[in-house]
């Protein structure tokens, strides 16, 4: 990607300033794009509900027998109750806290290490690059679910380890893309200029390279959040993530699986929450891509 405007200024601070400005412009354009507006509103509602969970839930999500067991949706229990008579709506609302936090944190893990690996590999090139990329290739070849599963079994079950496991399995994808970006930026004159005046490699990477890969990284990490939310709940679904009685969407689906014949609400509603959340995040990622990635701006005259 060679949008000329992006790295015209040799001075790092200006690059950051320009970047901040482009974010602001992006925000203004986002607010005009209907798809993005919808996704932002959806996400805002979701986050608000997640934060205000204790105040908006009708019941305690962990209190058993607040109603009859396996009660179908009714006015008292909008989404019905589960096997232990817990209110599903309250549990789904609390589940949003977990999924959002896990999604963001594990995307952050992939992001930090992915950018680090990718930048080093792309900037230094040569032996370091081919070695690192060989590792990344093998890493990509590992089935991601099995990889995350192995990490969780090594570290032990539980949400914290799920964050690490999902985060680590997301690293190679980001590293790949960031490296490609860094490679293309590396050849730009201002990098050469910085090298010529004696800037250290770390300084060049941090001040000159990283800001230029940020747009790509923002898009990727948004999409990474979406897939991290799915992976995390997949692990819980397989019994390796959140443990009962935690209110977690994947776990709730697992609990509902045995009662599909008798209590469809136990699978339909938690899954719907998961699906809509992921969709909102993906929608945001798509719009960001259209705004920030010049390759995706329409090329027709």
């Amino acid at each position, binding site marked *: 990607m060679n949008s000329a405007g992006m790295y015209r200024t040799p001075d790092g601070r200006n690059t950051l300033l320009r970047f901040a400005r482009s974010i602001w412009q992006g925000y203004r354009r986002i607010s005009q794009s209907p798809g993005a507006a919808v996704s932002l509103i959806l996400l805002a509602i979701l986050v608000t509900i997640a934060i205000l969970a204790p105040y908006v839930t009708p019941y305690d999500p962990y209190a058993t027998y607040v109603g009859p067991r396996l009660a179908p949706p009714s006015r008292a229990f909008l989404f019905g109750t589960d096997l232990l008579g817990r209110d599903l709506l309250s549990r789904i609302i609390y589940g949003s806290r977990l999924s959002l936090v896990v999604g963001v944190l594990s995307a952050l893990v992939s992001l930090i290490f992915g950018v680090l690996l990718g930048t080093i590999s792309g900037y230094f090139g040569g032996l370091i690059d081919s070695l690192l990329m060989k590792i990344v290739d093998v890493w990509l070849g590992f089935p991601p679910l099995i990889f995350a*599963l192995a990490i969780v*079994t090594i570290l032990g079950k539980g949400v914290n380890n799920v964050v690490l496991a999902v985060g680590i399995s997301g690293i190679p994808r980001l590293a790949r893309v960031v490296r490609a970006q860094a490679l293309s930026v590396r050849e730009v004159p201002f990098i050469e200029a910085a090298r010529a005046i004696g800037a250290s490699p770390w300084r060049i990477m941090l001040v000159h390279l990283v800001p230029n890969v940020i747009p790509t990284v923002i898009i990727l990490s948004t999409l990474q959040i979406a897939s991290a939310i799915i992976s995390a709940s997949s692990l819980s679904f397989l019994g390796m993530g959140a443990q009962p009685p935690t209110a977690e969407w994947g776990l709730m689906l697992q609990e509902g699986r045995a009662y599909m014949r008798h209590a469809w609400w136990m699978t339909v509603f938690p899954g719907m929450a998961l699906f809509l959340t*992921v969709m909102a995040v993906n929608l945001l990622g798509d719009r960001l891509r259209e705004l920030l990635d010049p390759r995706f701006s329409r090329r027709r005259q």
Partner: protein
Amino acid sequence: MLKYTFRRILGSLPVFFIVLTLAFAVIRLVPGDPVRNIVGGQPVSSQVMENLRKYFDLDKPAIVQYFNFIRKAVVGDFGVSYRSRQPVTRVFFEQLPATLQLAAGGILVSILIGGTLGILAGLFPDTWLDTILMFIALMGVSMPTFYSGMLLILIFCVTLKLLPVIGGSGLIGVILPSISSGLWSAGNLARLIRSAILEVMSEDYIRTARAKGLRERAVVLRHAARNALIPVVTLMGLHLALFFGGAAITETVFARQGVGRLLVDSVLEKDYPMVQFGILFTTSAYVVINLFVDLLYGMIDPRIRYE
């Protein structure tokens, strides 16, 4: 091209070696004693434990185990499964057909649905049709496999009672799992095809083709399709590899047998030899598929040459 293929295979040998080493190391990091799992938590004398340890080559230091493992792996001996006491290769290849079936079904669903959505959206960009199709694709991308699987079961097995819930063998049994696992791939494919078509259609050679008076059909089929195919083939290769190793969720939801489920269970039960071989196999599948994809590039686009 033969020379290129040969060189690529040689070049991936170190990858296999790294994978073997990693698989060996990672599974041994899982805490707990595999021999405890082998006896299934039953109280046994320490003599029995010792014998088992010896039988499975677990009594030696890790480094010796490692060299023994590599030495045998080179000649195709991957050891005996701790759980079933059968050669891991036999156990694995018994489960493989079910997974291959699912992978084929998933790819088929992906190409049928994703291809249709993507091509239509790409040929009529910025129309209401495009908007609707891309929204459907977004839904596919955002749908967790286990949720789509359970919804399908709810709709077709519980409510409509069209299909048996569990274990329907043969073609019937593979329909719903294929749809469930293919939806995500279809969504991704549709999005990719659309953007590939948009990109290709704005190229100069398309304008040239139109300028020389070719019919739109010929422009699309002969000039656009071929060029749009490259990223599509790349994505399909990647997804095929994912179907091999990532089928565990679908197999769990539909209570199917298969490699994914086998691998998950083996990790959980610390069946070292099984995990090692499973990871080697899925990674090899990834490498081989990638090689095929690269060779396909040359057939699609004669400008690509292999030296």
